[in-house]
């Protein structure tokens, strides 16, 4: 049955940054599609809430507090997951984020911190999980990148650079981990989440006007693409970037246009 190819029944997935926003949306959608989910983030209360919602859907879920930029914590998180679930079928590298700050005001510390949260984290999590997936001869890794990685985004120089690094890793790892482990990424456009809604409020009309589909994104839009990439429906897809963005091309924003601290 064709629709069974999209199911995640019987699969165990790790989703980083699962406490809120896109990561939470992916974790819940995966559970709805049949997966058991390990929810990873720094704030335990948030991931515990996501895990509780997943159990409410009848799936198993573990909340593991972890700074994905810390090598030891990542290794522990993966070991715990394997111990609890026996195996890992899907890894969603979603944890990350960026603050809007003009390049000339960016400190080295802020630049390196952004790289650690968005790029080094992907290296650490993927390395720990991929070893295991390669041994089992099966696995799908989904990296949540951003459209800001491929278009100019004043104020997001560090974030864009880090995510462009994630895109490159996606392509290289698709070859290194082939043929049994697939690696793909999703590049979301402007998605409204608890974190982004207030910040984007002053420019929302401009973004919507520049988006063919005429609306901002929801975490569910990204989650549906993630289900496709995690499932056997994408069995012949690897090394690719899925642009899920309402069709937006480029809307020129400056840090000062947005709300919130910069």
């Amino acid at each position, binding site marked *: 049955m064709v629709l069974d190819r999209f*199911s995640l029944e019987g699969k165990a997935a790790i989703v980083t940054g699962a406490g809120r926003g896109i990561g939470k949306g992916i974790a819940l959608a995966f559970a709805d599609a049949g997966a058991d989910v390990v929810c990873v983030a720094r704030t335990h209360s948030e991931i515990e809430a996501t895990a509780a919602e997943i159990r409410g859907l009848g799936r198993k879920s573990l909340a593991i507090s972890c700074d994905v930029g810390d090598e030891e914590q990542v290794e522990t998180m993966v070991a715990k997951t394997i111990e609890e679930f026996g195996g890992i079928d899907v890894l969603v590298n979603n944890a990350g984020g960026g603050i809007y700050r003009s390049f000339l005001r960016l400190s080295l510390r802020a630049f390196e911190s952004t790289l650690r949260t968005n790029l080094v984290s992907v290296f650490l999590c993927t390395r720990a999980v991929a070893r295991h997936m390669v041994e089992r001869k099966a696995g799908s890794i989904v990296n949540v990148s951003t459209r800001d990685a491929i278009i100019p985004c004043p104020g997001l120089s560090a974030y864009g650079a880090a995510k462009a690094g994630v895109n490159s890793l996606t392509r290289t790892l698709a070859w290194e981990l*082939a*043929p049994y482990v697939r690696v793909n990424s999703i590049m979301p456009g402007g998605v409204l989440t608890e974190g982004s809604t207030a910040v984007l409020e002053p420019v929302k009309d401009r973004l919507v006007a520049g988006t063919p589909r005429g609306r901002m994104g929801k975490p569910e839009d990204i*989650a*549906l693409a993630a289900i496709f990439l995690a499932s056997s429906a994408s*069995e*012949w*897809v*690897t090394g690719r970037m899925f642009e899920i963005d309402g069709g937006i091309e480029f809307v020129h924003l400056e840090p000062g246009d947005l709300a919130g601290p910069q």
Partner: protein
Amino acid sequence: MILDRFSLAGKVAIVTGSARGIGKGIALAFAGAGADLVCADRRVEALDATAGEIRALGRGALPVVCDVRDEQQVADMLRAALVEFGHVDVLVNNAGRAPLRDTLTMTLEEWEADIQANLTGTFLCSRAVAPVMVDQRAGSIVNISSRESQLPSRGMAAYGAAKAAVDSLTRTLAWELAPHVRVNAILPGPVSTPMNAAWLQKVGDHLVNTIPLGRIGVPMDIGLMAVFLASSASDWVTGRLFEVDGGVEFSHSATHDA
């Protein structure tokens, strides 16, 4: 239930070039996902066989003999679809041909024939069907392009150029038909079909070594991506190109000696 978002239940899809190969794979995938099909193709016999397989899956199938290069036939095809089903929710522009040509000795007629088969047909079908979708305030157009649109296409210059043009048309129509009609393209890598069977016989073993996922594609690989793009699972996706190719990075035309 989130997996319902991938369902095509209640939807009617036109798939051109669906008598065999990738088009047939897409039509069968759509039927498996709950859609009724309008199967358009030039080849009568194979068309009826495909329609039979769709009905065996419990879905409706209207086979229509149609050469997508002919304006009148395209108009007649759409009219037949609307008479039978009342609405059209998905159009898959898959009809096309990839004959091998030596670029420097091919004729002007051959060049124009390849462009017609692979680009003009997509334009004519989109031009005919899009107004119906715009009227409905809903629709999804899926263009079957090719990885050859992005890679050097030795021995298939016109095919590669035409598919690159299909990619461009995808982006333009996504904006012109927004916000209610979505337009996307799938770029298949090397897929095993009757059209390229002879070529695959010749280069198959060598080719597999260049594909990260270790196998040549099958029509269902493309069909599953098409189900994603046809369904509401891709509601926020338009103007985009989706490569389904096993990870391949370079093309091997028949001018490459195995």
